[in-house]
């Protein structure tokens, strides 16, 4: 029996948790946390698509409108959506300009594989004018969602991520914050 259990663990580590691979993800990049002194040096936006193949996380995206050239980009891990942490999850390739592409494939460890569907992983791009640790752009890896145009209504709540479960309410989450609405 121990061998069976070990084999199951090895298999899981090789392909990643099934529930992590089932969902499609994306990143919406925006300015990192700013104060008045850094407000004008941390502009820019971007998007990226995420592909998870086993424990291989591939990121392909674009960014634009930064005020100084990008220098480096990294996979980071916090403890929930919108909670920044440390950026030692692996390096990404980034165009050394104020706009360009972001790409890379990172092999996730067990902790990161668990962190992905829990909304704990994010990407940070640093720039000449907004270097690490604060950085220039960041974006959490969220469940794939539509980005509607300005003032175009969406049915229901549209996309509304939840702190520890990056599936929107419209995607069927049963998060306890829903209270007894369904009871």
């Amino acid at each position: 029996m121990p061998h069976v259990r070990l084999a199951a663990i090895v298999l899981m580590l090789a392909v990643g948790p099934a529930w992590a691979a089932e969902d499609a993800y994306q990143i919406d990049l925006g300015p990192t946390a700013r104060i008045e002194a850094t407000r004008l040096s941390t502009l820019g936006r971007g998007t990226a698509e995420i592909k998870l193949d086993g424990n291989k996380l591939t990121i392909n995206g674009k960014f634009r409108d930064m005020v100084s050239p990008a220098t480096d980009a990294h996979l980071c891990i916090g403890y929930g959506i919108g909670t920044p942490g440390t950026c030692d999850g692996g390096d990404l390739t980034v165009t050394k300009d104020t706009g360009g592409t972001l790409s890379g494939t990172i092999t996730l460890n067990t902790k990161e594989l668990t962190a992905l569907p829990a909304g704990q992983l994010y990407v940070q791009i640093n720039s000449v004018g907004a270097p690490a640790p604060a950085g220039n752009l960041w974006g959490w890896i969220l469940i794939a969602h539509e980005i509607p145009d300005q003032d175009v209504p969406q049915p229901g709540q549209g996309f509304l991520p939840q702190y520890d479960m990056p599936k929107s309410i419209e995607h069927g989450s049963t998060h306890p914050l829903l209270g007894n609405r369904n009871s």
Partner: protein
Amino acid sequence: MPLSLKKSTISAAALATTATFALWATTTAAQNRAASPFNAAQVEAGRAVYVANCQSCHTDNLSGSGEAVPLAGRAFLAGFGGKTTKELFDTVKSEMPLGAPRSLSDETYTDIVAFMLHASGAATGTTALTPTTAVKINTIATGTVPPDVANGIKLAQAPEGIVGPAAGAARPGPGGNRRVIYGPDGKPLPGLLDGALGTFRPNNNLGVIKQGNIKNYTPVTDAMLASPSPDDWLMYRGNYAGWSYSKLDQINAGNVGQLQLKWSLAMTEGGANETTPIIHDGVLFLVSAGNTVQAINAASGEVLWQNNIGPLPRSPDPAGDEATRSIGVYNDKVIVPTMQGKLYGLDARTGKVVWQNWYSDPSKPDEGQHGNTGGVSIAHGIAIVGMVNCGRIPQQNHCYISAYDANTGARLWKFVTVALKDGPQGDTWGGLPDDQRAGAETWVAGTFDPELNLTYWGTAQAKPWRRDLRGSGDGATAYANSTLALDVNTGKLKWFFSHAPGENFDLDDVFERILIDHGSQKTVMATGKNGIMWKLDRVTGKYLDSRQTVFQNIFTKIDPKTGTPTYRKDILNEKLDQYLPSCPGPEGGKNWQPASYHQPDDEMIIPLSQTCVLMLGSGTEKYYDMPGADGNMGRLAAYETSSMKPLWSLQQRSPFLTGVVSTAGNVAFVGDFDRVFHAFDTKTGKQLWKTRLGTTVQGHIASFMVDGKQYIAVMTGLGGGSPEQKPTFMLSEEVSRPAHGTAIYVFGLPDKTQ
């Protein structure tokens, strides 16, 4: 013009202040701290500069208030103790004055830093601080605030030559008289500021400056208030239940695209504009900065009478003075709460003052000097007002809700919104003495159930909002961040429900309470800054349901039976020197802009905002985009209230800064930061019409009818704190919005279609 100070002209009175702390300084010096790199002249110069530029937000003892961070004591050292004096200098210079950083001379910034160091217990030395002096702050400052600061800074005479930053650089900030302009005689120059805005000349006469007599005015009765004519807009948010809904349908989803401007009127500049037009019998009553009250022909825009109650606005800065969000009408009176602690009853026909009374009398120790931005609600002839600016520590006089005879102004009762140590719920503040229990302001006037004879109010969070700084432990800090149900006749508390026990992030649950019946079930609904929409039984206060309306990462769950939220673990284990993320941030997922209850479809339409912050123990905030919002700060979302089911939602870059008003014509009106006034279809959220106005569309909307024609009134203006201040920070390079332009606009259909 840069702020400057001639040290040689520092008054004798100011120097005398030095002597008052000399003994203390000597004592402190004996505490084996390192020699301080600043001198007494810098402290005094910095003190004067502080009074002129910083005090109104950061308070006269540097303890901070609202979003103005503490600049002295333990809280200050928590954030800056490990930094050097040079880093402090760089921070102050790069961030202050608000809206005009780097606008002062290096000499002035070093003076301010010297004064801040003194205020945190650093002993005065003999050498002069320079911009490059780099001494670790916690090696010279003790965190003990000296008496000359702790007891409130006092300047016997304003120093000469102090002027504010360039007027053209002025930008809205938190409320209060942030900037005082001094003349050569050392006296303030209210209402005069040279610069890019031109010479500021407010209405310079007080009293009834436009005489009038509305002879056909019909007194407003209890019956009218209980069941308002659709032609009128008799109160803040339209009816007792706070629906912000109009039964008029002449303007509807099919023809709203034809709306056109009927008239507009510039309002008094020099203060925040968040007000509500009140309409009765074709007369529109309006309050603006300087407590300017006007009666206006609602169809033509002609001013019928005007009373400048005063005091005059002190500068053109829209953050210069806060103002109330609503006046009220009862019988033949217009009821006006002011920021200066007074409640007025004006003759509705002439505008003359009939009665006046203090709701917060500065001469009474148990009342103090508080203000009102929340407006007034009137129930059965009783005018009920709340109170703001109760965050200062120590707090000798706590916030309260108080009631007055609307005919005479006589006070009837008051209810203190902070549970005192020896009273009910007194054990919810972790044993803090009464003078350390602050906050629980009431920013928005309550609603009223005439059958239950209860008035419903929300309260703000306890202060300081960080629980570690507050010292209240895990206590719920009653009656902060709660819904209160008070008996209208006695002010006695019927029940309360704490939405965020022991709140930590400046996330008030203080806004409008909306009363909705579902069959026999009577509910009260509210949405707070955390973006949680709550439903309570308004008879008992029992929790019924809740719904997340924007992304939030404060609570990990809400108990489905009790409604008690569970905080994120790191919030409970916070450290003073640690940045904590908060989504939403203090701008709030929801703020004072009220939702509309579109009764025909049981639909709540809520104006929401989407930003996050990293917040340091000292209160320093770093702003960032809300994950999942794609940079959109504005969100409008509709919910069916019986099921809490989301119906539709939309997003845009700029946040919405008016309340929503919906009509029986199935149109929802709302205005935004970027000067756009919108009309949306209540059933689908589809945009039906929009137009651009003079500056930010901000305040409350009203729908009314005169001579068979329906009109929609809306305000423009600035000022008013977080909802306007945060987008100013985030969007100032994208959005062009003049720093003036306070006005009312009234729209209607072309005559031929009516």
